[in-house]
């Protein structure tokens, strides 16, 4: 009188691993694909395009055509070349800001989660920084320094750090309150071991997810700053600069603004899609809140 083992389940049809992955994580796939294409184009820019700086006053404000795919600007510069080169600036800023914010945020978050005494002070400072709209914070810093890529990156990192600190800190605190970690501490597990065995592995996924959002936000802020004339030096062909320089000619040459703008939107979209996909996959707890 024993239950007969149920082996009646027909094996499921097995689509290719890759097909399954795409179906289950469409946002990771499309976001990732788009991003890879953009990164590839940015890396290959010197071979892919004409010289983005070459002036050609005869060919001013030419609309998109076979010769100038994205038209030319008021100095006759090739907008296609400038746009593809602009991808380098945006992606670089996005990546560096994300990495820097993640590391600084991780360090501060760990300190806050571990040391109660520092926690209060650091978190008040973070609250204060978060109260300042990020673009204004960046603007303030830029007002006081000479323009340059490094200062733009620093100016964007500062307002992004508190977001990362909050995430890391809450993870550390929640992990420390877990019964198994409490028992590990009671059992004599030391701080360093706790950090490497329990805390760091748990912060990794949220950190990556948060990093993609920081990256997207950084690219938007960088373009905004350049657009306002407070970003990277005007001679650098960043998307924000191209758009800023096209402003006066917008009514006759809208392509100088719409095309780099569309590229920026597409890049941010790709990073956001990747972030959403990674969040759903890596961090279901966070996903439920969105």
């Amino acid at each position, binding site marked *: 009188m024993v239950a007969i083992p149920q082996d009646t389940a027909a094996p499921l049809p097995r689509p290719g691993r890759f097909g399954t992955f795409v179906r289950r994580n469409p946002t990771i796939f499309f976001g990732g694909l788009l991003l890879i294409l953009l990164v590839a184009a940015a890396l290959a820019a010197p071979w892919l395009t004409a010289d983005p700086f070459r002036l050609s006053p005869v060919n001013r404000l030419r609309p998109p055509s076979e010769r100038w795919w994205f038209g030319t600007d008021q100095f006759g510069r090739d907008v296609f070349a400038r746009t593809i080169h602009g991808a380098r600036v945006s992606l670089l800023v996005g990546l560096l800001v994300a990495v820097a914010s993640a590391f600084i945020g991780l360090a501060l978050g760990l300190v806050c989660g571990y040391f109660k005494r520092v926690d209060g002070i650091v978190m*008040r*400072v973070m*609250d*204060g*920084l978060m*109260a*300042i*709209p*990020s*673009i*204004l*914070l960046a*603007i*303030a*810093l*830029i*007002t*006081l*320094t*000479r323009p340059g890529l490094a200062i733009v990156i620093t100016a964007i990192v500062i307002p992004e750090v508190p977001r990362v600190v909050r995430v890391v800190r809450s993870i550390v605190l929640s992990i420390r309150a877990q019964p198994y970690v409490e028992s590990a501490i009671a059992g004599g597990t030391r701080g360093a071991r706790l950090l490497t065995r329990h805390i760091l592995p748990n912060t990794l996924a949220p950190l990556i997810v948060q990093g993609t959002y920081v990256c*997207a936000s950084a690219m*938007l*802020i960088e*373009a*905004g700053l350049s*657009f*306002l*004339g*407070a970003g990277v030096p005007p001679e650098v062909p960043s998307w924000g600069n191209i*758009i800023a320089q096209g*402003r006066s000619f*917008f*009514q006759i040459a*809208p392509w100088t*603004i*719409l095309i780099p*703008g*569309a590229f*920026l*939107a*597409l890049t*941010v*979209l790709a990073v*956001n*899609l990747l972030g*959403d996909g990674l969040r759903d996959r890596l961090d279901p707890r966070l996903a*439920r*809140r*969105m």
Partner: protein
Amino acid sequence: MTAYIARRLFATLPVMAVVAVFVFFLLRLAPGDPAAIIAGEDATAESIAAVRAKLGLDRPVLEQFVIWLARLVQGDFGVSIFSNLPVTRLMAQRVEPTVALTLSTLLIAVCMAIPIGVVAAWKVRTFVDRAVMIFAVMGFAMPVFLVAYVLIYIFAVQLNWLPVQGYRPIAEGLWPFVEGLILPSVALGITYMALIARITRASMLEVLSQDYIRTANSKGLATQRVLLLHALKNAAVPIVTVIGIGIALLISGVVITETVFNIPGLGRLTVDAVLKRDYPIVQGLILVFAAVKVLINLVIDISYAFLDPRIRY
């Protein structure tokens, strides 16, 4: 309740203090010589010294801080380096367009986003829902200036329905005032709308799967009542929270929107100040915007008690 509000107001003080200390020391600790940078590329030693004196940078830091803070508390934000006018007066002149723009954006965004979020959640996994989600994901990636220029291109340049740029105060008549605000508000509002719509949808979806919604349906109530009373009231807290978070987005966006549409508001003042490196103005604007943001978050925290009877203070 009053005690709670008082306590919360008091709790905003340290936050504002951090902001104040930050903007103060930013000037003092900035790399290089801020006075030289503010004075400009080809400034003479005298003009740099003049700027330094004007900013009070020639005195001991602690003394500077005490004087600065004492003035700040009295509402004295200092004087502009270039125009020598008090920062508060410059800001007062520019407040109206910014308030008009932000409020109309808020209104448009909230009135559009919540209904579309609700409909998306109600019609989950249908064409409508997909369309809303695509809008939300795309909208969140759109830089404000791109949306602004696309709108200008379509509605002002091609169709000639609305003005390309400019701002008319409400004193000049309601329609000119409204006409000038439509495109900037929509441009500024798209990202905000995307954010609110997405949260509304997510929050509604979570609520719609709750047992009490099944109970409401088991009573045969009309769909509108189930969605708009039973579900939306429960979904309200995250939505209101995100409306508050989005204010920061709005403030950042104001700076860019006012530049694109040539609106003489606080955002435009900020940009002009940055280009002229007029730090006292930048500093004053940061303090004001931060205070606005902190106060709005306070209002939102307090509103929770009205939205959810389980929250008591």
